[in-house]
């Protein structure tokens, strides 16, 4: 055996933070080969994918618009992932939260007042929480695996949204298009950079990341969640309330997903439509891991993943890459990340023989 793999006594701190960088580098290299195989000149393709979106103010603002929901959701998911609570259904909670917020917006359509947006946010958070409460209840009461329930409920939420915008919430003056009325100004997020779509949600995402970092690092609740994830028996020994912690994880991640959904419809979209998310809820899972389940790492990871969305669109326009390139890049990134994470706990060495 030319190589041997040894378990490290201690996790390698350096590699813990280096492995996302390694993963990004490997993704870029693979992308290079991929573009070449597609008959593209790899360098310009990569340039349009990864660099040119960052060369204009508008590009950067769009990057932030995409990163905001990813960060908001991923920060919430990471709390659960740390505690071994696997909410895979943020996409559904985002949708359900958006429906709740959208109903509020449409209910007060045409009215004015500073209270409408906060009310929408509240409705969005509660909607996401309520939707995440289903897997939480099933897990704590019957021991049902939350991965399955939360994932399956995603499709239910998407169909519910379709049913609503094709039916009761359809714009009466919308030529029968499956979409709601455009929200009025009081239901729209303020733009923070004139001439772009950059909205308050980006600021909120940053504040949420900091708040969750404080929660996880300095409070007993965060400590309990980490213990629950790393050593469930120790959590039981310490007397931590396991079921309550599962509820906290799912409600928090669901609520933040719902809030992200609210920001989407009250921000760049401005109405309810059948497809309000290009898979933010799923991509956020990658973001959470790419960011080492650390809120501040997630901010960086969210920006990288947002770039894959923007870059994908850009490369589609500029060099005619297929749209699937975005998905492929995201998949590659997660794959390489998981692979490089192996090095955090194990070391690979050339096998040595016993010296004679």
């Amino acid at each position, binding site marked *: 055996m030319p190589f041997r793999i040894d378990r490290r*006594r*201690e*996790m390698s701190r350096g590699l813990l933070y280096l492995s996302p960088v390694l993963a990004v580098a490997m993704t870029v290299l693979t992308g290079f080969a991929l573009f070449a195989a597609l008959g593209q000149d790899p360098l310009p393709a990569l340039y349009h994918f990864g660099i040119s979106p960052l060369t204009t103010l508008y590009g950067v603002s769009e990057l932030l618009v995409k990163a905001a929901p990813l960060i908001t959701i991923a920060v919430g998911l990471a709390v659960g992932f740390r505690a071994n609570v696997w909410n895979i259904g943020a996409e559904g909670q985002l949708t359900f939260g958006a429906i709740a917020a959208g109903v509020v917006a449409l209910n007060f359509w045409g009215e004015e007042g500073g209270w409408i947006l906060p009310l929408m946010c509240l409705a969005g958070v509660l909607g996401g929480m309520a939707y995440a409460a289903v897997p939480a209840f099933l897990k704590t009461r019957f021991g049902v695996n939350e991965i399955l329930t939360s994932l399956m409920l995603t499709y239910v939420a998407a169909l519910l949204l379709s049913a609503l915008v094709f039916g009761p919430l359809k714009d009466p003056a919308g030529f029968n298009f499956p979409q709601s009325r455009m929200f009025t100004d009081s239901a729209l997020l303020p733009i923070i950079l004139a001439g772009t779509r950059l909205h308050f949600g980006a600021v909120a995402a940053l504040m949420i990341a900091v708040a969750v970092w404080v929660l996880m690092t*300095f*409070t*007993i*609740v965060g*400590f309990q969640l*980490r*213990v629950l994830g*790393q*050593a469930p*028996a*120790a959590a*039981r*020994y*310490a*007397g*931590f*309330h396991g079921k309550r912690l599962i509820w906290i994880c799912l409600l928090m991640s669901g609520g933040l997903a719902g809030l992200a959904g609210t920001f989407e419809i009250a921000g760049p979209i401005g109405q309810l439509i059948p497809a309000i998310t290009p898979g933010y809820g799923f991509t956020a899972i990658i973001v959470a891991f790419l960011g080492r389940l650390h809120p501040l790492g997630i901010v960086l990871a969210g920006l990288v993943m947002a770039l894959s969305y923007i870059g994908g669109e850009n490369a589609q326009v500029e060099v005619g890459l297929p749209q699937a390139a975005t998905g492929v890049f995201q998949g590659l990134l997660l794959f390489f990340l998981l692979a490089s994470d192996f090095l955090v706990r194990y070391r690979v060495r050339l*096998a*040595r*023989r*016993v*010296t*004679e």
Partner: protein
Amino acid sequence: MVSIGIERPGPRLQARGLTKRFPGVVAADKVDLSVAPGEIHALLGENGAGKSTLVRMIYGVLPPDGGQIHWEGRPARIESPRAARRLGIGMVFQHFSLFEAMTVLENVALGIDNPGAMADLARRVSEVSASYGLPLDPRRGVHTLSVGERQRIEIVRSLLQNPKLLIMDEPTSVLTPQEVERLFKTLRQLAREGCSILYISHKLDEIKALCDRATILRGGRVVAECDPSEETKGSLARLMIGADLKTAKRRAETERGPVRLTVEGLDLPAESLHGTALRKVSFNVRAGEIFGIAGVAGNGQKELELALSGERRAKDAGAVRIQGQEAGHLGARARRRLGLGCVPEGRRGHGAVPDMSLVENMILSGYERMNLLSTGFIKKDAARRFAENVVVDFDVRAPGTAISAGSLSGGNLQKLIVGREILQTPGVLIVSQPTWGVDAGAAAAIHRALADLAAKGAAVVIISQDLDELLETTDRLAVIDRGVLSDPMVTAQASIEDIGLMMGGVHGPAPVHDEALGSRRYAV
């Protein structure tokens, strides 16, 4: 090198100058070791003395940095455990390598190189386990087995391969005296048949009774080679730790205070198919008293530990009373508020979180009693001071409090956990397997700390499979067998034979199938 004797053939295993360096430490420093055919050779030393490193090199787990191994007179390159097994070296590890989700039989099949047909293997497992007195049901899932039962799998697995050298790392810590005797017979028989045995133990009596020769390691070096039968327990201990063993000082019986822990008619259903249900467990412990619970692994010790700590709750609130308060219905945290401390059997992942720092591990059980919180926020400085106190007071050998608990050796981790619980000044302390896998020096320190705690007026319960430990440290003890606790007896008046028979009542050679057996049977 001392020659083994004229009429005997050359050594089966000879290590010359074996050296292994880890970052910052030389774990084995030019170690010489020679084991003759048919010899039972003791390897004696504290944790960290280099015993494990040495045998891991012999078993092909670790590549040596220097030195040579000769097997039956020829230089050998042992690159893997598989290569070691091919030579005829078997090993029973102290930390088991078993797949929890699989059955005993599947684990045995995975651990040997030519398992053959499963039905045939099952028969061989049954044969070996029967002839060596290691009862084992090949079809049971490993996750349902206790520590002692898991160890049996490892022993049987090694014996199945008819080894020429069997390395045993603390094999007797979970056996009854009768089982130990039977194992010794087995080992002696194996030795007579020509198998060499490298026997690692901290139990000096065992080494004196069993072993032909002993190599004593300290700090990675061989400090002595001797014939243990010509040494005294004290002289062996001095060689091993370089100082006299300090034994726990028990105080006079008369100084006992009020009852601090009462367990009355505690029933607890089994948690899994092969778990043990607790049936009408009753005992009480007074202030200043150390109460022992003896028994063979898997007879309800784990369940009793969880039922006392609050990790499992009883239906009846009055089944457990802590300092007079009903606590049977309370969880672990609420019981801790009443003054309970607990050192669980499992250290890594139960009593401590391996990937967290020593400081964070202090917070685990101490955040309320040590006042480490302020409105939900952790007082990092207070937690660090607490950790530093534990490290200093309990002589935890660690380069700082920011390192992960998982990087500590077993003995140091146990001192950390015991220290964390004791410094919270509990009124009642439950300790399970306090010195399992802990070296003699650390074990003595832990025993001393428990005695001191009792002397200050706490009630201490020690659940242990190590009978010698209970006889040395406790005032009274009872035996748990199939979830039923015997009547307590005064330790000073109990004989090791009687207790051993009680412990072996069911798991011995002639099982007694009498469901009506109550605690009466065990009355002294």
